[in-house]
């Protein structure tokens, strides 16, 4: 059994290697986009990136499955397993997003955090594959935790899109200002003022080409919303399933355990996010802030509560 566990760990290391190569290639592709724009030469690097990512996902999946085999149960009962599964979901969502549209530029922004979390998982959170304590020995472990993991993976990608949306929106605003300034310049030149030098630094003024290669901020917002909507639905299910399990295990559906408090906060923040899209003055930028804030709460719920707080959910196994 331990051999299988070691094989699983090896596969996760292999996954990290593949993602590492893919991350570099995605970054090369991004810099190419910046220099040449989307209509430049064929994007060779991104092809390499996508194939290594796919290879990584295969290794990743095998690693997760073997982890479950080694432990003789579902592979999501401690923080190490939760981390390797949530990252698998996130990369899976990234690959799924490619259907029907070119979202390959996202690779850098998804694989970066994924590698970081996998690094934390193997170096800090790792525990040997083993059985679980009796209180976790329930079919609700399969339901409650798996849905929480999937929700976390999806919300990760949604928050990434929200960050990109904010940056893209700034770039768009700058472009509008720049164009307005150029029009004003031209009018001044026409009126006899000296022409300004035409060349400008690539970083200033005009929207950098890498941002032109991406969907506009409204499109990013819509995509983030769709993922957040799915994530919110799954999170609602996680909380309800958790309450049912808590009733079975601890004799009360809700007891304001720190994990429950943070899950509630996450739920309320994402509820606010959904409402913000229907509130004048809150759609767009502020909604994106809420999406990012919500994800920050998800992270706090995961790391702070599991490691630092005296919670009944302290199942990190550390």
């Amino acid at each position, binding site marked *: 059994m331990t051999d299988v566990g070691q094989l699983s760990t090896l596969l996760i290391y292999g996954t990290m290697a593949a993602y590492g190569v893919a991350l570099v290639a995605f970054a090369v592709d991004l810099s190419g986009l910046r220099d040449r724009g989307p209509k430049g030469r064929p994007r060779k690097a991104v092809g390499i990136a996508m194939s290594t990512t796919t290879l990584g996902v295969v290794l990743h999946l095998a690693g997760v499955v073997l982890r479950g085999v080694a432990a003789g149960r579902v592979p999501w009962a401690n923080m190490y397993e939760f981390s390797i599964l949530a990252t698998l979901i996130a990369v899976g969502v990234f690959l799924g997003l490619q259907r029907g549209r070119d979202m390959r530029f996202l690779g850098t922004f998804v694989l970066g955090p994924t590698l970081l979390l996998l690094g934390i998982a193997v170096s800090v959170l790792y525990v040997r594959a083993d059985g679980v304590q009796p209180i976790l020995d329930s079919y609700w472990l399969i339901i409650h935790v798996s849905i929480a993991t999937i929700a976390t993976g999806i919300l990760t990608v949604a928050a990434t899109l929200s960050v990109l949306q904010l940056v893209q929106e700034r770039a768009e605003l700058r472009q509008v200002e720049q164009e307005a300034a150029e029009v004003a310049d031209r009018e001044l030149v026409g009126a006899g003022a000296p022409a300004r030098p035409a060349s400008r630094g690539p970083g200033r003024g005009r929207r950098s080409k890498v941002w032109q290669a991406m969907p506009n901020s409204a499109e990013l917002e819509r995509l983030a919303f769709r993922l957040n909507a799915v994530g*919110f639905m799954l999170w609602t299910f996680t909380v309800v399933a958790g309450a049912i399990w808590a009733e079975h295990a601890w*004799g009360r559906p809700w007891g304001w355990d720190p994990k429950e408090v943070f899950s509630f906060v996450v739920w309320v923040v994402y509820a606010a996010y959904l409402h913000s899209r229907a509130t004048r003055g809150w759609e767009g930028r502020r909604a994106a802030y809420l999406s990012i804030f919500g994800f920050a709460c998800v992270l706090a719920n995961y790391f702070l509560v599991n490691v630092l707080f005296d919670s009944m959910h302290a199942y990190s196994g550390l």
Partner: protein
Amino acid sequence: MAEHERQAVAPSEADPTNLSSKAGQGERLAEGERPGADGAAPDRPEVSQPSLGLLGWLRWIWRQLTSMRVALMLLLLLAVAALPGSFIPQTPQDPAAVTDFRTDHPALAPWLDRLGFFDVYSSVWFAAIYLLLFTSLIGCIVPRVATHWRALRARPPRVPRRFDRFPAKRSVLLAEDADTVEAAVLRRLKGRYRAAVTDRGITAERGYLRETGNIVFHLALVGVLVSFAAGQLYSYRGQAVVVEGESFANSVVDYDSFDPGTFFDSGDLEPFTFTLDELRSEFTVDAQARGFGADVTVTEPGGGTHRDTIVPNEPMNAGGANVYLSGNGYAPRLTVRDGAGETAFSGTVPFLPEDDVYTSRGVVKVPDVSGGQEQIGLTGALLPTAVVEPDGSGAHSVHPQPNAPLLVLTLWAGDLGLDEGVPQNVYVLDTDEMRQVYEEREDGSPGSAETGQQPVTLFIEPGQTVQLPEGLGSVSWDGLPRFAALDLRYDPSLPYLLGSSIAAMLGLFASLFVPRRRLWVRLEPAAGGRTRLTSAALARGDDPGLGRELDRVVEAAGTPVQNEETDTKGMSR
């Protein structure tokens, strides 16, 4: 409705789908801020009037409260208000931690106490936020129920005059005549849309379930809150420690702690009893718990008996209450004889485990039975698998199973304080009126710290009898049964809570993922018995499938003669 009409008549130039997505969560916007007050501060009309009057103010407050903006603020406020409860220890969850916190922060604690920070979720300000939020919710949702009810019974909205500003639109010349095409379109829409033929064309709408789901979701949240409140009022919760071979009767006296809801009458407790036959436990070699089970024999109030097993995650149901196995440990059976040889104490004493290897702490309180005897207190640890330090200075446990059990006790004598009639914590020895007993001096007289003796430490193994110094008597360890710590809970609100939660999830699913679409088709006879079909569609919220949907309807309408481009060229007349 007004919201819809505005979209339909004048979609935003920049991105009409985006505008409709703003209304994705509903008409609360229109409800709260009045469509007429677009762009202006909602309170402007009131400000311009010198006397608003009480009614006016109330109306203004109500409108503010039920506005989306305030609902959003209240949601964020609720999130922020919930957080302190995870940082500051809470009395209902962990009273011991609160006591420690008070000791550690003597200046801060009284203020936190005054502001309710040690019981955030029962505090006035937390309740104020969620009650305002729910008032806002009800104020929003009730008018929407009426609106939705009317929309369900009304005809789909009339066909707009112009289609050219809609995000999805088609124009095609069909070979069939207008009547045939109309029949084909209606056939395609049947079962999917509510459709009506008007003199301006065919109008159709689908996805009422989206708004129904939205309403159900919000009302179900009210159901969740009400169920919780009812649970607080009508439930009870109690804890009891039951030792193997001993029985528990479901009455208040048999509980170690009993916490009834406001409206629960403890006379209503079902009089069942059960005996703990055996507590089973399973551990790995490295002391990890792998399984627990409490085998019990239950006697029903009617007299019937049955055997049952309580394991973690699988409570036993008895007399309407659930019985949970929340902990377990050892309760050594001890006999203490006093100096006169009389049995002063005989029974089991639960020792509470404190770590993974079941190092357990407990207290034995021995009353005085013969005249002239002091009361005795024994306090210390039970080590299930004891390893004694090589120098004999102490011992520790290495495994939770009783492979080599050892009791390590210190001895106190004096007044236990039992006679004052004040209920005592059975796990704490009140040593205020007691003295610790020291090793005897070499001449046999009582020792003390001043004369250089050590406090007495008794090491007792099962079956052993140990004599106490100073003629205080003896302690015998007769057996090592286990105990089960049981939580009993009765909460009639649970089915309602579950029902409300499931309704909320279903409603949420519908409100997020059921597409709401409007679709219009206009047919005009063209030369040669042909028909020109123009159509447009509008969705509420993001709807990437809208164009495909329109394509399918157009395809079903008839045979295209000349496939025209779908842009505005073919549309503007």
